[in-house]
């Protein structure tokens, strides 16, 4: 109804011509608005008016600027952080335990036999200044060697480095390539390098090492990878350390536990690893008290005598604390525990809870990451480490068309080995050294929003003490092997205590720093501070703008109408009838101004009207017309 009325009024105004001018509208607005400045502009004297005008403009611009600042701040999606520290009943972390040696040497000896023999000869060749030909001539498997041989690079003459093959004379008889002085070079003059060839030996690179130790180790690991990748997983798991041999005793709080409480997982670097409290099948164990009494106590036997001699030079247990249902990347994040010691680890759970988009680029569950998570086969949660490794494996498969032994395989792919993929070592080392590959992976993988780390305080003591040594060894041997002899030794046993510290959690939680309430209250504060305004004032302003447009429309319509009128008048080319004439026309029915008749006539109009009888019209009439109209429109405006 109202709208209709309003529209009618507008139409009326339209018909009548522009009743409101811009100035009137502005004055009315200034007088009636609720913002504080404009009123002053109207009702003060001229000097103050100017001052208030300037002030109002200034404040308006200030408000606009500050609003811009606030909206920009809001759109920057900042977060505020709350940190809480304390103790609460928490799930005990999952504990992964591995032996530093992936396999029992006694069980993998048959696989590594050729390689080990070769390695011994290589060492001998490097060390001994004069090769003793007698023992080299025994049957060595040179197929391994030929694929990626180790070479000596003689750099005593820097401009002409001489490459010497360690077995130069033996397998192809090209004695000329390795002259006699090359044999007596040492670390200062010579470097041991690995020759990596691809494309059937046409393109070769030498991977240099600064020390022979490094070169030999690297070479051996590469060859061993090649061998193990051809053995099926089940066989490999049998060759690793079984749980009952590794875990001698286990105590969680007051509850005894055994190797059966551990979940087995095969980790290519460390063989069989065992995870306590992983939460995959069993209930997750909580720990309600701080201190070693209520934590996990373990006794392990790493069996150092059975280590693979060339594969690992470090002896100890490897362990890692991680979240339930997450995959342990123990090679990167694990720590060592030394044999013959008791290692106590106090744990503080360091939790980070981030806000997702648009606050940061993290991912909640990894579903929006463009890389297929290869570790999802273990039913584990997303982590950036898993993503980076999956990404590497992806690249590996793309570039070398086979998967690396250390990472899980996607469907339908095969692990690299020398037989099927002769170029893989060259390809792999190139890929490993490429920075672009890593950068690409990092840019593709995004970190996970909820991140839990375990801060550890590690302390060590000798264990068992000399006086208690005897009985402890006896008991442990009895328990494991049911034998009266001592089968464990100081070189093999590790004691571990893992427990919560006095404060067991530190949570860093993100929350949006600037929410919509903050934005609104600040906008309101600014507007109120400078101009005393509110949202209603904005609506008022909008209304004024609509009125403004109406006026413009009315004016335009009036203008067009006047244009048309003028055109019509051009046609009739006579002055418009005066008010008196019109009044006459209205009251006197017989009166005919007969303008139309005399259109083309050029004679002055006044002469014609003179003879018409009637009261002479008042002369000031036309002057009054304008102010009267104004008053009328004003009263009408009040009604609106």
């Amino acid at each position, binding site marked *: 109804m109202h709208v209709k009325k309003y529209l009618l009024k507008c139409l009326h105004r339209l*018909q009548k011509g522009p009743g409101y001018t811009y100035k009137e509208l502005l004055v009315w607005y200034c007088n009636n608005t609720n913002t*504080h400045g404009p*009123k*002053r502009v109207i009702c003060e004297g001229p000097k103050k008016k100017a001052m208030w005008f300037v*002030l109002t403009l200034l*404040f308006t611009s200030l408000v606009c600027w500050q609003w811009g600042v606030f909206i920009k701040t809001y759109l920057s999606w900042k*977060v*505020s952080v709350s940190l809480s520290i304390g103790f609460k009943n928490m799930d005990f972390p999952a504990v992964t335990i591995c032996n*530093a*040696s992936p396999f029992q*040497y006694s069980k993998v000896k048959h696989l590594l036999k050729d390689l080990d023999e070769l390695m011994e000869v290589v*060492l001998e060749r490097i060390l001994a200044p004069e090769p003793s030909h007698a023992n080299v001539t025994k049957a060595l498997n040179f197929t391994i060697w030929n694929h990626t041989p180790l070479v000596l690079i003689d750099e005593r003459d820097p401009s002409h480095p001489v490459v010497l093959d360690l077995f130069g004379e033996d397998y192809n008889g090209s004695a000329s390539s390795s002259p006699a002085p090359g044999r007596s070079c*040492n*670390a*200062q003059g010579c470097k041991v390098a690995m020759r990596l060839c691809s494309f059937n030996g046409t393109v070769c690179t030498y991977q240099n090492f600064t*020390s*022979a*130790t*490094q070169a*030999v180790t690297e070479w051996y690991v590469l060859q061993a990878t090649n061998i193990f990748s051809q053995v099926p997983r089940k066989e490999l798991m049998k060759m690793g350390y079984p749980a009952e041999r590794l875990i001698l005793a286990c105590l969680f709080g007051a509850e005894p536990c055994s190797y059966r409480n551990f979940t087995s997982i095969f980790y290519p670097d460390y063989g069989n690893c065992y995870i306590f409290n992983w939460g995959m099948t069993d209930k997750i164990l909580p720990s309600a008290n701080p201190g070693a009494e209520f934590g996990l106590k373990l006794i392990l036997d790493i069996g*150092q005598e059975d280590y693979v001699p*060339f594969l*690992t*030079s*470090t*002896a*100890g247990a490897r362990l890692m604390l991680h979240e339930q249902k997450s995959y342990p*990347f123990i090679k*990167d*994040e694990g720590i*060592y*525990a*030394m044999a013959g010691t008791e*290692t106590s680890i106090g744990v503080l759970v360091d939790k980070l809870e981030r806000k997702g988009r648009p606050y940061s680029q993290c991912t909640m569950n990894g579903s929006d990451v463009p890389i297929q998570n290869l570790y999802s086969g273990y039913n584990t949660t997303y982590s950036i*480490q898993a993503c980076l490794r999956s990404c590497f494996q992806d690249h590996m498969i793309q570039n070398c068309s086979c998967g690396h032994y250390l990472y899980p395989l996607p469907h339908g792919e095969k692990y690299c080995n020398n037989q099927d993929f002769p170029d893989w070592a060259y390809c792999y080392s190139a890929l490993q050294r490429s920075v672009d590959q890593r950068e690409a992976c*990092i840019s593709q993988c995004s*970190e996970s929003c909820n991140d839990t780390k375990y801060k550890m305080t*590690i302390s*060590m003591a000798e264990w068992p003490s000399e006086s208690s040594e005897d009985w402890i060894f006896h008991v442990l041997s009895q328990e494991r092997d049911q034998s009266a002899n001592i089968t464990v030794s100081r070189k093999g046993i590790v004691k571990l205590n893992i427990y919560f510290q006095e404060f067991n959690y530190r949570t*860093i939680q993100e929350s949006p720093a600037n929410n919509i309430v903050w934005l609104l209250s*600040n906008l*309101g*504060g600014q507007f*109120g*501070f*400078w*101009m*005393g*305004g509110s949202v209603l004032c904005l609506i008022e302003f909008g209304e004024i703008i609509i009125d403004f447009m109406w006026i413009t429309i009315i004016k335009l319509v009036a203008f067009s109408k006047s244009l048309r*009128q003028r055109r019509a008048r051009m046609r009739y080319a006579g002055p418009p*009838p005066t008010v008196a004439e019109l*009044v006459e*026309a*209205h009251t006197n029915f017989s009166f005919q101004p007969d303008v139309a008749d005399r259109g083309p006539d050029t004679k002055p109009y006044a002469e014609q009207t003179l003879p018409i009888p009637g009261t002479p019209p*008042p002369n000031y*009439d036309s002057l*009054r*017309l304008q102010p009267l*109209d104004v008053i*009328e429109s004003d009263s009408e405006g009040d009604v609106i």
Partner: protein
Amino acid sequence: MAPGEKIKAKIKKNLPMTGPQAPTIKELMRWYCLNTNTHGCRRIVVSRGRLRRLLWILFTLTAVALIVWQCALLVLSFYTVSVSIKVHFQKLDFPAVTICNINPYKYSAVKDLLSDLEQETRGALKTLFGFSELESRKRREAEPLSSAWEGTRPKFINSVPLLFFDQDETSKVARDFLTGQKRKVRGSVIHKASDIMHVHQSKQVVGFKLIGRNFTLFHHPMHGNCYTFNNRVNDTVLSTSMGGSEYGLQVILYINEEEYNPFLVSSTGAKVIVHQQEEYPFIEDVGTEIETAMATSIGMHLTESFKLSEPYSQCTEDGKDVPITNIYNTAYSLQICLHSCFQTKMVEKCGCAQYSQPLPKGANYCNYQQHPNWMYCYYKLQQSFVREELGCQAVCREACSFKEWTLTTSLAQWPSEVSEKWLLSILTWDQGQQINKKLNKTDLAKLLIFYKDLNHRSVMENPDNTIPSLLSNFGGQLGLWMSCSVVCIIEIFEVFFIDSLSIITRHQWQKAKEWWARRQPPPCPEAALRPQGQDNPALHIDEDPPTFTSALRLPPALRTQVPGTPPPKYNTLRLERAFSSQLTDTQVLDES
């Protein structure tokens, strides 16, 4: 209502008496309260009844008080900071790693320099504890030492005599004695044979993987030659883009146990410190020890902290505003400032510089030849330094931003039983001609330093309040209590300070004039000729010509009725109406 009254009221309404035009303060206040934009004041004037008015006055005053209080709180809490912790996963710069042997100098090389001191120490040990021969080391048996004690005149024991106080205190004194001598002797070492130091390398870095081979030599006064890895050689800093032990620094250290000085150091191993590239490694203060025959794996976590400097806290950005000259050629840190301060004071008080810190300009290191009393002076100074009497702790300020690497250290046996044999032999080969004998397990240590993960945690202080937020808080407070704004404040200023003052001065001026007039009886009769304000006794404003308002307020003074203009005869209203209807008609006609 009479038509005159009506017009008057209308004019009064449309033409407000603003500012100084108001005749009295009360009138001004009334006008202000009626027309102001704040909410309380109007109520005071409008409300009826004394109680209500009082209540409204009370409310308004309370609101004003609340505004003032809250705004004061806002201003006072302006310089607070909020801390934000951010964790990024990104490519990280590898820190500089400095590795030192605990033993500073090869025993075989400095034996000659220290022989006197050593003999005296043995002598002192013998006199104090009745223990004569150090049998632990075989190589010492060859030395002729029994005669030396008798032969040479003890020179060190005279300068700092060792006293035998009490059974409990002996060990302490003995230790002080030893370290004191050590410092002094080393001071002379550096003077006499500074060239020796750079020749001796008591440690060899055997092998390291992955990130390059740039160890730079760095001479540390207490630890001899130290080697810094990744110390911005060729202006490049190495960085890691993968976490984990594979992608870090792997070093095998050769710690030549046989060359250890028996009295200088009593532990075996190496020291390692992780620090920023520009930072000076205070290895004696914050180093981590590395055991021999062990693999030490150190996982790092990077935490970066940024503090806000003035006016939020007292920290310094680059140390330029700290009145202590940095004698180290490195970036500022609190530690550096304290050491520099101490060294400067030492040069001031004792006239010579202490050996373990760099030399300030134009100073010399202390030795007994030139500064016989330096040891006494040094101990005095150190005591007062520890008691914070030197003012160093007050002057030095912490740095605003620092990087910190949290280390998680774990140990494992290395080399393992089965790999020991081949590893030792190949390491010996690596050493080449430098060592002619086979290496021992206890001469070696393996060190792995790596980023545990590339999560980089930065703790940042941000200003809690900015000017916009402060202003909007002000606005919120003002709006909440009184619906006030800056405009109101300007109004208040205008009304209370400019207008009311002008009114008061006007009144005073008028009073003074009156008083002056009364004091001086009319000097001339012309003075009485002030018939302004139409001779109206009700109007007190004498100086100003009556404004339209004041004129209107005058009661009609005389019975003289101004003959009003007779109403116009023509009927304007009717004319207008007729006209408008006529106009529409004509328009319609025109259109049709």
